[in-house]
């Protein structure tokens, strides 16, 4: 553990998940020579999170396969990986250097700071959430605890019909548990997909045995003895549960940034180069509020992504800024969500669409929704339809047109009707 002003951490990256790892790796790939310290507050080597609610929970892959890089890689690239240290205070000078103080009392001098501190699970504020058997799923420890409990339980309630909730519900259902999914809103994944896709997912998961309750008003979590026994809804119904998993969104971890005077508003505000308001600290990943990177996005539009793709692409841009070859972040955001046997891939951002085109091939189990604004295709939700996903992603990136009339026929390959801008 670096402990003094005498041994500077160099670039101190706080947060060793996707964004932090990518930033360190990209910097070395760009020939950045100064010391890099990659610091995380978990007692694990840097690992990938997306599989925690899917393949890892289902036992299809081990924890070891989530590890990003071998120790040899870190050593060879002179990236010092520090784990199990939580930074609680930062003294920062105007030039961007300073000292970070950890909960264990370590003082880490740095020349420059990168905040890749992510987001934490939003807590549900109802009676009973502290009962044993009520869990969240954000990190590896959460997943390990959940996984350890699954063999001992039958009835599960998942609160929250966003990606984490649905993915976990689908995994647990596949593992033979009786799963009830409670969503407070009128449809599933309301924030990330359109109404048609929500409806498709709802039908699919119900047909596969998940009891999905929409507009669910959770009153309290009910205990029996010292453990969870069920979830009580406003109508008085109690859904039995030996395990309750809560996935009701996340809150960006902006506290450290705020404490050193960086502008924050639903995340740390950064420019197109990932630079925060002091012009020198970078912020990347789930914690960053950045200019919308989609080509042609409205001037001044800002966005905060919770996605691997953004963490990777924004980290590369931040790395360029740090080595003094600034590049603006531009790209087509994309997302994926594996829900048991459904592979959902989303290209682009559908906000502001004025037309949707549904392509469905029931026999092949393929389903896509294409989103248009005027004549322009701006996004697609694709279920088990990677060709559609790839074609739309490519079209948005190049500004190509996909005529909506022709696209409605699922037998037509989108790539074949994609027209490059003249």
């Amino acid at each position, binding site marked *: 553990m670096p402990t003094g002003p005498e041994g500077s951490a160099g670039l101190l990256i706080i947060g060793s998940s996707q964004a932090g790892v990518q930033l360190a790796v990209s910097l070395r790939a760009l020939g950045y020579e100064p010391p890099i310290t990659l610091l995380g507050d978990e007692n694990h080597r840097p690992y990938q999170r*997306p599989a925690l609610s899917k393949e890892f929970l289902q036992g299809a892959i081990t924890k070891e396969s989530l590890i990003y890089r071998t120790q040899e890689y870190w050593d060879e690239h002179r990236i010092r990986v520090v784990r199990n240290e939580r930074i609680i205070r930062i003294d920062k000078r105007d030039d961007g250097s300073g000292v970070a103080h950890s909960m264990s009392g370590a003082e880490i001098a740095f020349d420059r700071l990168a905040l890749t501190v992510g987001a934490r699970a939003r807590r549900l504020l109802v009676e009973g959430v502290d009962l044993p058997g009520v869990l969240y799923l954000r990190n590896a420890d959460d997943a390990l605890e959940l996984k350890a409990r699954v063999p001992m339980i039958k009835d599960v309630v998942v609160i929250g019909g966003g990606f984490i909730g649905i993915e976990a519900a689908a995994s647990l259902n596949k593992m033979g548990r009786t799963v009830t999914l409670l969503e407070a809103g009128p449809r599933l994944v309301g924030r990330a997909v359109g109404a048609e896709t929500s409806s498709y997912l709802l039908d699919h998961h119900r047909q596969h045995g998940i009891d999905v309750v929409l507009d669910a008003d959770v009153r309290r979590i009910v205990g029996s003895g010292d453990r969870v026994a069920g979830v009580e809804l406003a109508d008085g119904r109690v859904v039995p549960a030996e395990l309750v998993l809560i996935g009701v969104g996340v809150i960006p971890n902006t506290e450290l940034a705020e404490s050193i005077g960086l502008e924050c508003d639903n995340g740390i505000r950064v420019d197109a180069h990932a630079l925060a308001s002091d012009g020198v600290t970078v912020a990347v990943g789930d914690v960053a509020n950045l200019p919308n990177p989609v080509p042609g996005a409205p001037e001044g539009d800002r966005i905060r992504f919770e996605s691997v793709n953004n963490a990777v692409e924004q980290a590369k841009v931040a790395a360029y800024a740090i080595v003094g070859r600034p590049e603006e972040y531009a790209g087509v955001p994309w997302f994926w969500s594996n829900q048991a046997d459904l592979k959902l891939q989303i290209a682009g951002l559908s906000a502001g669409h004025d037309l949707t085109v549904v392509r469905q091939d029931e026999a092949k189990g393929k389903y896509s929704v294409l989103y248009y604004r005027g004549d322009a295709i701006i996004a697609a939700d694709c279920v088990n339809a*990677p060709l559609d996903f790839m074609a739309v992603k490519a079209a948005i990136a190049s500004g190509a047109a996909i005529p909506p009339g022709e696209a409605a026929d699922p037998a037509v390959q989108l790539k074949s009707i994609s027209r490059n801008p003249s």
Partner: protein
Amino acid sequence: MPTITYTDATGSARVVEANVGDSVMETAVRNGVPGIVAECGGSLSCATCHVFVDEADFAALPPMEEMEDEMLWGAAVERQDTSRLCCQIKVTDGMDLHVTTPETQV
């Protein structure tokens, strides 16, 4: 130990010892082999671990499933007859696999 030889688009090769059961993608990423992006971590969602398998090795691999086949049509560099997504290739005992990475994955 099984070995995977990754040759990049310029012809420069790197030999990596691999663990049985890992994928060829995981082996590359964990060892920092450039040219394999693998954004989705191997869940067959991104087509950024595209490789061209050495012709002599290709036939010995288990055939690809339909989803991998479809994803390959969307890879950044046009697929060839020996293209695979290496997240779907598991390292087996005694494997000595040779793959070439395309110029770009994105």
